[in-house]
């Protein structure tokens, strides 16, 4: 087992290096840079700016150096935890990251839990009571959730939340709890706001997760050992949990790794619509303004999280299923 872990962890490194290079290239692709954005803002305030000012500002921000040097500076800093400086927000990137990372993770993880909490029972029920009316009903609801674009869902949920429950629009807290110390009431307020992004994001993944589970389970349930056990009189529920479910869960675990990028992308859109203080909206602003350090660091962070997620799921899978370790 240990050999496998070491192999996988070391395997991650070249991947991450390639990713960082890719990120850097992609950020630099569009024409213009942070300097032009900054100067635009200054000009719109009536200040006049000349081409020389542009050149000097660029030098100040180290943008006149060859791309390779810029890349090395950036990735070097990232590795020691210095994520650089955001010219868009005029603050160090690490400050911005820490502020937002917590909320991003909370939303992403809670969506993941929501997905499982719904998908697993639904999948089991569907497998066991195939083609029943409830099966069709569940499938339909899941499908609608999957099919509706997330921003539309978010918008409608926000509207419904306000009209039906009086939940204040935008953000994760009502005004009165915003900077109050944590208390039970604040927690309740937070949850009442959290459910919208959680449901909107989670619903997308629920349908596919449910179907995967159902398919796996059906697979297992038709196998001879199950039939034998039933014939010998083992109770159905006990039987279900003792063997088939655990085996059916296996490929399921690998979906953690696959869900992460989708969740993080989805979170960006939903957060924009709902006005949440997470990484997504800041990242998109950074991409538009071509704030290299901010956008690049965010993206790198997200990629690292994703790779870690995939690693985790692979390791879990290997631990659960010995066959894989010896591939």
């Amino acid at each position: 087992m240990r050999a496998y872990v070491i192999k996988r962890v070391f395997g991650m490194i070249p991947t991450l290096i390639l990713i960082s290079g890719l990120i850097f290239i992609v950020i630099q692709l569009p024409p213009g840079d942070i300097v032009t954005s900054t100067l635009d803002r200054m000009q719109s305030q009536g200040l006049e700016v000349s081409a020389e000012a542009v050149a000097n500002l660029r030098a100040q921000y180290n943008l006149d150096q060859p791309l390779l040097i810029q890349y090395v500076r950036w990735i070097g800093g990232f590795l020691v935890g210095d994520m650089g400086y955001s010219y868009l927000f005029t603050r160090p990137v690490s400050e911005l990251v820490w502020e937002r990372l917590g909320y991003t993770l909370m939303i992403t993880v809670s969506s993941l839990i929501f997905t499982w909490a719904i998908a697993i029972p639904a999948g089991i029920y569907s497998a066991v009571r195939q083609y029943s009316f409830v099966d069709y009903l569940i499938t339909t609801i899941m499908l609608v959730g999957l099919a509706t674009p997330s921003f539309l869902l978010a918008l409608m949920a926000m509207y419904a939340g306000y009209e039906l429950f009086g939940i204040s629009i935008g953000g994760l807290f009502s005004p009165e709890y915003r900077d109050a110390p944590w208390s039970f009431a604040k927690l309740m307020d937070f949850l009442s706001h959290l459910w919208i992004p959680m449901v909107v994001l989670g619903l997308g993944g629920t349908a596919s997760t449910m179907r995967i589970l159902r398919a796996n389970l059906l697979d297992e349930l038709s196998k001879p050992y199950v039939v034998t056990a039933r014939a010998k009189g083992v109770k159905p529920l006990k039987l279900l949990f003792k063997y088939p479910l655990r085996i059916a869960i296996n490929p399921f675990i690998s979906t953690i790794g696959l869900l992460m990028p989708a969740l993080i992308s989805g979170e960006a859109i939903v957060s924009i619509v709902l006005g949440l203080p997470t990484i997504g909206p800041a990242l998109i602003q950074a991409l538009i303004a071509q704030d290299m350090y901010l956008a690049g660091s965010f993206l790198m962070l997200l990629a690292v999280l994703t790779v870690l997620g995939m690693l985790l799921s692979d390791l879990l899978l290997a631990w659960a299923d010995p066959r894989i370790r010896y591939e």
Partner: protein
Amino acid sequence: MFTDRKHRRGLTAWLVPMLLGVSPVSVAAEDAVSPMPDSWFEIPKTASEVGITSFSQSPMLDDAGLPPVKDRLPDDPPVIEPLNNIGVFGGRAQITLGDSWQFFNWESALTISADLRNFLPNLAESWEVSPDGRITTIKLRSGLKWSDGHPLTSDDFIFTFNHIWLDTDINPVTSMLVIGGRIEKVDNLTFRYVFEDPNPMFENLIAQYGSFMVDPKHFFVKYHPSFADREFVDAKVAEIGVPTWMALLDALRSAIIDEGLDMPTLRSYKIVQRTPTMVRFDRNPFYHKVDPQGQQLPYIDGIDAEDILDNAEVVTAKASTGQLDFAAFTLRTQDIPLLKLGERNGEIKVHIWRRLHSSDVAIQPNYNYADAKYRALLWDVRFRKALSLAINRPEMNEIIYFSRGVPRQVTVHPTSSYFEPHYATAHTEFDPDQARALFAEIGLKDIDGDGLVEYPDGSPLTITLEFLDFETPKGITMELVASYWREVGLDLRLKLVDRALQSARAQAGEMQMTLWHADRVTDILFPLVPDWWAPRSTGWDRGMWNDWARYYQTDGELGENPPEIIRQMQQWTDDMRYETDINKRITIGKQLLQANADNLWTIGTIGLAPHPVVVSKRLRNVLPKGIWGWDNRWTLAYHPSTWYFDED
């Protein structure tokens, strides 16, 4: 401007309100005008002139361990008259960060009169411009203090001018606005700006932009290498994580980092806390204004400004559901129905101001475009006239502006002393037949029968207009314009671009056509920066003639030498800038504006558009009908420090 001020003030005192109330559609009862106090147009009286003997402060400050209010105010504070009632202290306002420059303003030596033409003393007690226009002298009020109690003196203005504006590390290229100038100290309260060439309109700059001309020297000397220990500064830079000490200063001045929370300010509120989602302001205990009963302004105790990243929809939703006490900057004309629907819940009141923009969309043909054939076509004034005549402005007004905008060209604002009505109405009639006739006259014919005209030599004619859809309803306006032009046979393609592309391509002169909205149209800024009417400076929001502007800016080193008529216009802008006689200046300015009316360098659509200003039903003294724009800093002349929350 100074001698005739009283006379002009009288004229504009009723002219301005009339303009605000008038619309092409019949004036409904709700359009009735709220009269502004006379004092908003005159030099503010001081407490001793009004006869105030004692001052009072907000109860919030009673136990804060501060010196008595009389000592915190200047020796003879200016008295600001509220619009309607004397207010009561208390309350915290909920707004978004986007409105934090509008809900309360920046303080400068001078301020702007409500007639948008004249200037009034603010931090200054008086000021003087020398007859040759080279020297602007400012005498500060005695006893002004920063928000930490430290006195405001000439040194603070001198520091900013010499060590920020003229510092070659911070500003490698000195701004055109202060080039050739220096600052001299007369005494602790008096200083003057001295220029080599006449600069009689420097006072315009001080009034409109002057908040950026003063900084708390006692705070910044700790961080500026010219005063502080270089090692200390470098250590601070490394500690905070900014790249250079210039960036550190910038971050401090914008109070974006925690260090900047301590930075003293002159504004009515100071920052006390900054979180990822929220900026909290508390009242500035050393604010220098009082109301007619001696109560120290502002009335409202604090502001909670929420930071909503890049989503105007959330702000609109919050505003219409009564979750904000004040909202205006990010709101748009098309939001008005939703906001007014929200009014029915009784939580909010929706005021309709008018945007300052002369035209929400100023279409800019690029006279410096590379292709000679296209350039020749654009240079033909008949072509431009045809483009303007083909636009059905009344219909556009109905569709986009609920018939409450004003069809007009790009010219000065009606409040301006340079304004003549025919500048605005030139070629704004809807006459597609005439447009087609002009096309034919130029030689544009539809040869292949597809309904679209070609160049006289038969080659296909397609114009691509690239633009950034931001702030005013540009996208929907252009979709209408494209269909109107198609009706008369012109093939217009629209391309949306983002900020970076707009900036790069417009300045490089690579766009065939672009657009932006036209502000800087009042007496405050027009004579100083008449950029819509002559190529004086390059800009990403002006794509007409950047090569000619570069030529002017660099004295012929870069860019292209403009034709005679353009050079004449550039000369006029110089003449205006150096002219000390106001009447002569107006004459020159009008020549410039007439040239535009005749030539249509840019094509306007609809201007003076309705702009929603949403206020909580408890918020009082907000002007119901004002002029909303950058020139007059949105609310500056309307005294937001006198806004207060009603107790019930």
